C-alpha cells in the first residue's frame, strides 16, 4: 500500500471559478489534509466565506480530513430554478 501524495480533482463552479482561476484542476494531497488546508495551500488568496464544499458529490465540512476523496467541489450559493 502506497501512502502519502494522492491526486484529487478540484471543481470550481459559478463565481468561485473566477476566484480560483480554474474550473477544474488536479492536485496532489495528503489523506490527512482538510479542504480548508488544501485551499490555503494552493489558493491562499481565495475567500471561502460563502462557499460550501462537496466531497465526491456530498456536502462536506471544510475541516474534515479528505481521506481517499477523489473530487472536491467549491459551491457558491445556489440559484437554480
Amino acid at each position, binding site marked *: 500500500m502506497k501512502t502519502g501524495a494522492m491526486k484529487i480533482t478540484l*471543481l470550481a*463552479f*459559478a*463565481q468561485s471559478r473566477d476566484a480560483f482561476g480554474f474550473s477544474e484542476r488536479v492536485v496532489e494531497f495528503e489523506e490527512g489534509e482538510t479542504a480548508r488546508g488544501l485551499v490555503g495551500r494552493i489558493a491562499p488568496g481565495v475567500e471561502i466565506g460563502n462557499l*460550501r464544499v*462537496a466531497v465526491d*458529490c*456530498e*456536502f462536506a465540512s471544510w475541516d474534515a480530513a479528505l481521506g481517499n476523496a477523489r473530487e472536491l*467541489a467549491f*459551491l*457558491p450559493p*445556489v*440559484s*437554480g*430554478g
Partner: protein
Amino acid sequence: MKLDILFTHEPIVIPDLLSGSREIGAVVEFRGFVREMEHGEALEGLFYEAYEAMAGKVLGNHLRELGEIHGCDAVEFIHRLGWVPVGEASLYIRVCSAHRGEGLGFLAAAIDRLKLDVPIWKRVGKPG
C-alpha cells in the same frame, strides 16, 4: 414513486403524459420562464450551470423524500442548462398524485428545496 430527472442544454420539451394509473386524480405542472425584468434590470436571458452529478443526487434525495411526505405517484423534473433566452422555460416539473393537495404541496416544497442546496447556478448574460 416513479422519478425522472433530466438536465438538458436544449429547449425543454414536455414529455407525453403516459395515461398509466387509473388512480391518478391530479396532475400539476410547473414551468419556470426567464423573465425580462429582474431586480429592475432588463435581461436578454440567463446562463445556467450545474454540477450535474451532484445536482442529480441531491435533487433525487429531496424529491424522493418529498414524494414520501406528500404521497405522490410520479414526478418528472427537467432543468435546462446553458443559455436560456427571455421567454423560454428553464424549469419543468410534473407531479402525478391521487388528489390535488398532494401534488400542490409537493410542487411548492420541491421548488423550495431546489433553491435551498441543489448545485445549480444562474448568471446574468452569456459568459465569455
